[in-house]
């Protein structure tokens, strides 16, 4: 099966997909309610897209293709309000966060769709364990080559996004000491990791993808669970490492940060990516998952070690010209504030201290997502 040709997209257009938790308001556990919620949402037009995910306690929303931070944030807020209104009718709450603090994977039910049933058959308990919630940001690329260039140039910045978005410190009722425990579930899949270092789309097609499909291990791009993955049907690359933030405003901030970063990279702001950049990749990624903004990142070229917090702040300063061009100055200020306030994992830990129980954490997350906390 040959790869679909890369559809060209407007450069630096972007879109956000969010996987959200459906919370039973009686006991704050996950609710197997996506079929009921989708049935209710179908009655009225939806300001975006809403689709099921692999287990019935997850729901995925997607914005349309946007070009600016302001309209993206507005659309995400509208989607949130529509969802909340429907969820209220069904005694459900919605929450962000990369993991549900105390759900048990064995209780999750697979959504009745053919692909999910197949995945469940293949991966066994990993499918139910994949009840984790992430944010995917798509960035439009003018060609497959540009896509691969951005994919590899962004590898240095992946820990930024992990640390900024991290919101999954609790798993099965316990503090994992990680900022993002969610990514540990992603890494369990055999086809996770990163794309092979190829900079031309034609090479990617012939030297890698066709060979992989020939082995029978892979049928389509969907089977790869890479941190950044090209999506040829949309003409985008997809950043998949972020945990779902605790509110939609933060989701919009992260998308704008990624957009500005891509603009800077396309302007030639960094030396070209090389294979050796990946020497420090897994270490940096682990530091971000474990320590969040306090983690240490090693620069792939100079091997300088700085804290992620410092690295993000430095990068934000460099992105001023791009931010002005893309009308996302407000967004970068928001990211700045996020670095100082602390990420979602920090907020959830504080909520636990205030509430005294993991159920209280979920309650706080539900209220924060609704914008009332």
């Amino acid at each position, binding site marked *: 099966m040959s790869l679909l040709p890369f559809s060209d997209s407007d450069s630096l257009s972007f879109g956000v997909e969010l996987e959200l938790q459906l919370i039973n308001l009686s006991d704050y556990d996950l609710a197997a309610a996506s079929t009921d919620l989708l049935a209710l949402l179908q009655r009225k037009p939806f300001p975006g897209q809403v689709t099921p995910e692999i287990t019935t306690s997850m729901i995925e929303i997607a914005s349309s293709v946007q070009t600016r931070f302001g309209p993206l944030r507005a659309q995400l807020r509208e989607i949130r309000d529509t969802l909340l209104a429907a969820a209220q009718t069904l005694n459900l709450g919605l929450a962000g966060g990369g993991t549900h603090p105390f759900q048990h994977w064995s209780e999750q039910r697979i959504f009745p769709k053919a692909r999910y049933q197949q995945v469940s058959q293949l991966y066994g308990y990993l499918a139910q364990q994949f009840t984790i919630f992430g944010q995917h940001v798509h960035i439009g690329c003018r060609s497959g080559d540009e896509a691969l260039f951005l994919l590899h140039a962004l590898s240095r910045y992946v820990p930024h996004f992990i640390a900024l978005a991290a919101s999954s410190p609790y798993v099965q009722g316990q503090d994992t000491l990680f900022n993002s425990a969610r990514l540990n579930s992603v890494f369990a899949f055999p086809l996770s990791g990163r794309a092979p270092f190829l900079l031309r789309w034609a090479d990617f097609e012939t030297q890698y993808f066709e060979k992989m499909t020939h082995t029978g291990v892979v049928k389509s791009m969907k089977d790869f669970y890479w941190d950044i993955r090209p999506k040829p049907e949309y003409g985008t690359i997809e950043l998949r490492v972020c945990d779902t933030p605790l509110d939609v405003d933060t989701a919009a901030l992260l998308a704008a940060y990624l957009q500005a970063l891509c603009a800077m990279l396309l302007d030639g702001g960094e030396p070209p990516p090389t294979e050796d950049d990946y020497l420090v990749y897994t270490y940096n990624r682990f530091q971000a998952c474990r320590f969040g903004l306090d983690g240490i990142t090693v620069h792939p070229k100079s091997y300088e070690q700085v804290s992620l917090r410092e690295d993000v702040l430095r990068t934000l300063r460099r992105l001023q010209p791009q931010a002005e061009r893309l009308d996302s100055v407000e967004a970068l200020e928001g990211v700045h504030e996020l670095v100082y306030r602390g990420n979602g994992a920090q907020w959830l830990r504080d909520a636990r201290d205030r509430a*005294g129980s993991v159920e209280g954490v979920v309650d706080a997350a539900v209220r924060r997502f609704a914008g009332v906390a």
Partner: protein
Amino acid sequence: MPFGTPPRGQVRGWHTRAMIWNDPQLLAQLPVLVWPLLLLGAWLIGEWAHHRLALPRITCYALAGILVGGAQLGWLPASAEPLMALAAHIGFGLLLFEAGYRVNLRWYWHNPGLLAAGLLDAALSFVGVYLVAQWTGSPPAQAALIAALGMAASPAALVRVLQEQRAAGQISERLVHVATLNCLLAVIVFKAVLGLTVFEQSGSLVGALYTGVWATAVSAALGVMAGVLLPWLLRSRVLSGDRSLPYALTVLALVGATHLLQLSPIVAALVFGLVARHRREVFSRHARGFGPLGELLTLALFVYLGSRLEGALALTALGAGLALVLTRLLTSCAVMTALARWSGTTWRKGALTGLGLMPLSAFALLLLEQSRHLALDLLDGLAPLMAALLILELLGPVCTQLALRWGGELPARAPEDKS
């Protein structure tokens, strides 16, 4: 006496054994053994039927109780009965607490269709059952009492089936919310009707109503007090472990107190659960159901209820009983289906919710027992009611299970861990 009276002064081995059999005091204690053995037997039947026939366990417990009940095989000793009755009432209280705990009052506010469905279901069930009861020959006062009972659905049986089947979804949520609402309404109406019929002779209509409503209000107030006081008492971080025991003890105290004061233990326990949850007191998953204590008391509850049903009496009015059951079924299904779309669900799920609301017997029997102090043993002589309760005791939980299965709210594969 099979062994005869042992001669004085001769205390040899077999004479000692003979003395034990001859001791009247000891013999009087033996029946105490019957109940635990009966419960063990019921539990075994329940497990077997659950695994082999996929029946809800509480149906089997009730069946065991019916078989050995006073009116059937008569194996149960009267002496142990007050203890069993108490265990049953406490077990019921715990389940009602669970039910109240699962209710989110704000949902009625956000989903007026649901509230309307509950109220309409109660109203139409009352009217329907009243008419059918009169048609099958009951005098108006008795018909009104039967109708008041018919308004409700037993939250205890529902909660038990939901827990056992690990059900989750809109039908499950709606069952609990509608049943709790209707249960409270039924208690109020029942007490009001009781007050009317009892005091009709003594002439004070207003007095009767007042007593009925007042009893319910005070019970609710006790429930609220407990629901506010207990979380406050337990707010210290030091007590951060499993909190279910103090709650179980409080339910015990509430049930006891409301019994003594001739109020409504049902209302008190339900309201306690409602308020505890809304004070953001949250139980971890494994603490719910009150663990082995809850299991034991639930077992005792349903076996006891089964033993209170008189098969012979019920069989004399089976047709009438069936008519009552079908009336309830049809009104619930009709109302739930009609209001399904307004309340945010599909017609199919609405109809299945109506089906799932069938269990009644636990609530009805205990409510009737609690009214015994008014010197009205209503159960005797109300053959159609007895028949209806017999049918519902066995088939009610089965209906709920079917509703959940057909609604797709049961897990595809039973989880290994049954804790």
